[in-house]
Protein backbone atom coordinates (compact mmCIF):
# COMPACT_ATOMS: atom_id res chain seq x y z
CA UNK A 1 0.00 0.00 0.00
CA UNK A 2 1.55 3.30 -1.03
CA UNK A 3 1.87 6.33 1.24
CA UNK A 4 -0.22 8.46 -1.11
CA UNK A 5 -3.00 5.89 -1.19
CA UNK A 6 -2.98 5.60 2.62
CA UNK A 7 -3.20 9.38 3.07
CA UNK A 8 -6.03 9.56 0.54
CA UNK A 9 -7.89 6.69 2.22
CA UNK A 10 -7.65 8.24 5.71
CA UNK A 11 -8.75 11.62 4.32
CA UNK A 12 -11.72 10.02 2.55
CA UNK A 13 -12.88 8.25 5.73
CA UNK A 14 -12.45 11.43 7.79
CA UNK A 15 -14.39 13.43 5.16
CA UNK A 16 -17.20 10.83 5.23
CA UNK A 17 -17.41 11.25 9.01
CA UNK A 18 -17.39 15.05 8.63
CA UNK A 19 -20.32 14.74 6.22
CA UNK A 20 -22.21 12.37 8.53
CA UNK A 21 -21.64 14.14 11.84
CA UNK A 22 -21.97 17.68 10.48
CA UNK A 23 -25.25 16.76 8.79
CA UNK A 24 -26.59 14.88 11.85
CA UNK A 25 -25.40 17.58 14.27
CA UNK A 26 -26.89 20.45 12.26
CA UNK A 27 -30.21 18.64 11.72
CA UNK A 28 -30.50 17.86 15.44
CA UNK A 29 -29.65 21.47 16.31
CA UNK A 30 -32.11 23.00 13.83
CA UNK A 31 -34.91 20.58 14.81
CA UNK A 32 -33.91 20.28 18.47
CA UNK A 33 -37.48 20.27 19.82
CA UNK A 34 -38.42 17.24 17.66
CA UNK A 35 -35.19 15.50 18.64
CA UNK A 36 -35.93 16.10 22.33
CA UNK A 37 -39.49 14.77 22.05
CA UNK A 38 -38.36 11.72 20.07
CA UNK A 39 -35.93 10.86 22.88
CA UNK A 40 -38.75 11.06 25.44
CA UNK A 41 -40.33 8.06 23.70
CA UNK A 42 -37.36 5.88 24.47
CA UNK A 43 -37.45 4.37 27.99
CA UNK A 44 -33.69 3.92 28.30
CA UNK A 45 -32.75 7.53 27.51
CA UNK A 46 -35.92 9.52 28.32
CA UNK A 47 -34.65 10.48 31.80
CA UNK A 48 -31.63 12.14 30.26
CA UNK A 49 -33.43 13.67 27.25
CA UNK A 50 -32.76 17.24 28.42
CA UNK A 51 -29.04 16.67 28.71
CA UNK A 52 -28.67 14.42 25.66
CA UNK A 53 -30.57 16.78 23.36
CA UNK A 54 -27.72 19.26 23.91
CA UNK A 55 -24.73 16.94 24.32
CA UNK A 56 -25.32 14.73 21.25
CA UNK A 57 -25.57 17.51 18.60
CA UNK A 58 -22.71 19.39 20.29
CA UNK A 59 -20.50 16.26 20.29
CA UNK A 60 -21.27 15.61 16.63
CA UNK A 61 -20.42 19.18 15.60
CA UNK A 62 -17.24 19.15 17.72
CA UNK A 63 -16.12 15.86 16.17
CA UNK A 64 -16.80 17.21 12.66
CA UNK A 65 -14.57 20.19 13.50
CA UNK A 66 -11.82 17.96 14.98
CA UNK A 67 -11.89 15.76 11.86
CA UNK A 68 -11.68 18.85 9.63
CA UNK A 69 -8.41 20.09 11.19
CA UNK A 70 -5.42 17.89 10.15
CA UNK A 71 -3.66 18.17 13.54
CA UNK A 72 -6.72 16.93 15.47
CA UNK A 73 -7.93 14.46 12.84
CA UNK A 74 -6.71 11.34 14.65
CA UNK A 75 -8.30 12.40 17.97
CA UNK A 76 -11.46 13.22 16.03
CA UNK A 77 -11.40 9.78 14.44
CA UNK A 78 -11.13 8.07 17.84
CA UNK A 79 -13.97 10.23 19.19
CA UNK A 80 -16.09 9.54 16.09
CA UNK A 81 -15.52 5.80 16.56
CA UNK A 82 -16.53 5.90 20.23
CA UNK A 83 -19.67 7.91 19.45
CA UNK A 84 -20.54 5.54 16.61
CA UNK A 85 -20.00 2.59 18.97
CA UNK A 86 -22.44 4.07 21.51
CA UNK A 87 -25.00 4.74 18.71
CA UNK A 88 -24.60 1.15 17.51
CA UNK A 89 -25.11 -0.30 21.02
CA UNK A 90 -28.25 1.85 21.41
CA UNK A 91 -29.52 0.84 17.95
CA UNK A 92 -29.01 -2.86 18.77
CA UNK A 93 -30.90 -2.45 22.07
CA UNK A 94 -33.84 -0.75 20.26
CA UNK A 95 -33.74 -3.21 17.36
CA UNK A 96 -33.89 -6.19 19.71
CA UNK A 97 -36.68 -4.73 21.88
CA UNK A 98 -40.31 -5.66 21.26
CA UNK A 99 -41.63 -2.08 21.27
CA UNK A 100 -41.14 -0.20 18.02
CA UNK A 101 -39.91 3.27 18.93
CA UNK A 102 -39.47 6.27 16.67
CA UNK A 103 -35.92 6.90 15.52
CA UNK A 104 -34.22 9.82 17.25
CA UNK A 105 -31.71 10.14 14.44
CA UNK A 106 -31.36 13.25 12.34
CA UNK A 107 -32.76 14.02 8.90
CA UNK A 108 -32.78 11.49 6.08
CA UNK A 109 -31.11 8.81 8.25
CA UNK A 110 -34.44 8.19 9.98
CA UNK A 111 -35.88 7.06 6.61
CA UNK A 112 -33.61 4.01 6.74
CA UNK A 113 -35.51 2.29 9.55
CA UNK A 114 -33.81 0.49 12.42
CA UNK A 115 -32.31 -2.35 10.33
CA UNK A 116 -30.91 0.05 7.72
CA UNK A 117 -29.66 2.31 10.50
CA UNK A 118 -27.89 -0.64 12.15
CA UNK A 119 -26.18 -1.62 8.88
CA UNK A 120 -25.05 2.00 8.32
CA UNK A 121 -23.69 2.25 11.88
CA UNK A 122 -21.81 -1.06 11.69
CA UNK A 123 -20.33 -0.10 8.30
CA UNK A 124 -19.09 3.24 9.66
CA UNK A 125 -17.83 1.59 12.85
CA UNK A 126 -15.81 -1.09 11.03
CA UNK A 127 -14.41 1.49 8.58
CA UNK A 128 -13.40 3.79 11.44
CA UNK A 129 -11.75 0.98 13.42
CA UNK A 130 -9.87 -0.17 10.31
CA UNK A 131 -8.72 3.40 9.64
CA UNK A 132 -7.45 3.82 13.22
CA UNK A 133 -5.46 0.57 12.95
CA UNK A 134 -4.03 1.62 9.57
CA UNK A 135 -3.22 5.10 10.90
CA UNK A 136 -1.31 3.64 13.88
CA UNK A 137 0.62 1.25 11.63
CA UNK A 138 1.20 4.03 9.11
CA UNK A 139 2.62 6.32 11.81
CA UNK A 140 5.19 3.66 12.73
CA UNK A 141 6.64 3.82 9.24
CA UNK A 142 9.94 5.76 9.03
CA UNK A 143 12.18 6.69 6.12
CA UNK A 144 15.93 6.73 6.82
CA UNK A 145 18.25 8.80 4.67
CA UNK A 146 20.80 6.60 2.92
CA UNK A 147 23.60 9.19 3.17
CA UNK A 148 23.06 10.75 6.60
CA UNK A 149 21.53 7.66 8.26
CA UNK A 150 19.01 9.94 9.92
CA UNK A 151 15.26 9.81 9.65
CA UNK A 152 14.15 12.11 6.85
CA UNK A 153 10.46 11.47 7.21
CA UNK A 154 8.36 10.19 10.05
CA UNK A 155 4.74 9.55 9.51
CA UNK A 156 3.38 12.38 7.36
CA UNK A 157 5.73 15.06 8.70
CA UNK A 158 9.15 15.78 7.26
CA UNK A 159 11.89 16.02 9.89
CA UNK A 160 14.33 18.84 9.19
Amino acid at each position, binding site marked *: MTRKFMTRYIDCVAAAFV*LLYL*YAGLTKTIHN*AEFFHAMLHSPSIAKYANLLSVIIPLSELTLALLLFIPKTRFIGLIGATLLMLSFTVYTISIYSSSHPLPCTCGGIIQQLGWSGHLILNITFLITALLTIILQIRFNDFMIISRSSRKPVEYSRQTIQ
Partner: protein
Amino acid sequence: MKKFSLFIIAAAIAIGFSAFTSPKSSTTYYYQDSSNQWQSIDGSLVSCIPGTVNNCFETINGTSRQIFKSMSTSDPLKYN
Protein backbone atom coordinates in the same frame (compact mmCIF):
# COMPACT_ATOMS: atom_id res chain seq x y z
CA MET B 1 -6.17 24.57 0.10
CA LYS B 2 -6.12 21.54 -2.20
CA LYS B 3 -5.86 19.07 0.68
CA PHE B 4 -8.89 20.67 2.32
CA SER B 5 -11.01 20.42 -0.83
CA LEU B 6 -12.45 17.01 0.10
CA PHE B 7 -13.47 18.28 3.55
CA ILE B 8 -14.89 21.54 2.19
CA ILE B 9 -17.03 19.57 -0.28
CA ALA B 10 -18.20 17.23 2.54
CA ALA B 11 -19.04 20.19 4.79
CA ALA B 12 -20.88 21.99 1.97
CA ILE B 13 -22.98 18.88 1.21
CA ALA B 14 -23.77 18.43 4.94
CA ILE B 15 -24.80 22.08 5.37
CA GLY B 16 -26.83 21.98 2.15
CA PHE B 17 -28.66 18.78 3.07
CA SER B 18 -29.38 19.91 6.63
CA ALA B 19 -30.77 23.23 5.39
CA PHE B 20 -33.27 21.42 3.19
CA THR B 21 -34.23 18.69 5.67
CA SER B 22 -37.71 19.22 7.00
CA PRO B 23 -38.62 18.17 10.54
CA LYS B 24 -39.51 14.53 10.70
CA SER B 25 -43.12 13.46 10.71
CA SER B 26 -43.83 11.95 14.08
CA THR B 27 -45.74 8.83 14.93
CA THR B 28 -49.47 9.13 15.49
CA TYR B 29 -50.76 7.81 18.80
CA TYR B 30 -54.32 7.36 20.02
CA TYR B 31 -56.41 7.92 23.13
CA GLN B 32 -60.06 7.54 24.07
CA ASP B 33 -62.12 10.61 24.91
CA SER B 34 -64.91 10.81 27.53
CA SER B 35 -67.35 9.05 25.20
CA ASN B 36 -64.83 6.26 24.50
CA GLN B 37 -64.27 7.50 20.97
CA TRP B 38 -60.78 7.14 19.54
CA GLN B 39 -58.90 10.37 18.98
CA SER B 40 -55.47 10.72 17.43
CA ILE B 41 -52.57 12.73 18.82
CA ASP B 42 -49.33 13.79 17.16
CA GLY B 43 -46.49 11.68 18.61
CA SER B 44 -44.28 14.73 19.01
CA LEU B 45 -46.76 16.10 21.57
CA VAL B 46 -46.56 12.97 23.71
CA SER B 47 -43.94 13.58 26.33
CA CYS B 48 -44.85 11.55 29.40
CA ILE B 49 -41.80 10.91 31.52
CA PRO B 50 -40.97 7.28 32.29
CA GLY B 51 -41.11 6.08 35.85
CA THR B 52 -42.39 3.06 37.64
CA VAL B 53 -45.72 3.15 35.78
CA ASN B 54 -45.70 1.04 32.65
CA ASN B 55 -48.39 2.72 30.61
CA CYS B 56 -48.10 6.22 29.26
CA PHE B 57 -50.66 8.78 30.38
CA GLU B 58 -50.81 12.26 28.92
CA THR B 59 -52.84 15.27 30.05
CA ILE B 60 -55.02 16.26 27.10
CA ASN B 61 -57.48 19.14 27.44
CA GLY B 62 -57.05 19.01 31.21
CA THR B 63 -57.83 15.30 31.47
CA SER B 64 -55.35 12.47 31.90
CA ARG B 65 -55.64 10.07 28.96
CA GLN B 66 -53.92 6.76 28.36
CA ILE B 67 -52.00 6.69 25.09
CA PHE B 68 -52.18 3.75 22.69
CA LYS B 69 -49.96 2.94 19.74
CA SER B 70 -52.89 1.82 17.63
CA MET B 71 -56.63 1.93 18.07
CA SER B 72 -56.59 -1.03 20.41
CA THR B 73 -56.66 -1.11 24.22
CA SER B 74 -54.33 -4.11 24.11
CA ASP B 75 -51.62 -1.98 22.53
CA PRO B 76 -50.75 0.75 25.07
CA LEU B 77 -47.71 2.96 24.72
CA LYS B 78 -45.30 1.74 27.39
CA TYR B 79 -42.31 3.11 29.21
CA ASN B 80 -39.97 1.31 31.58
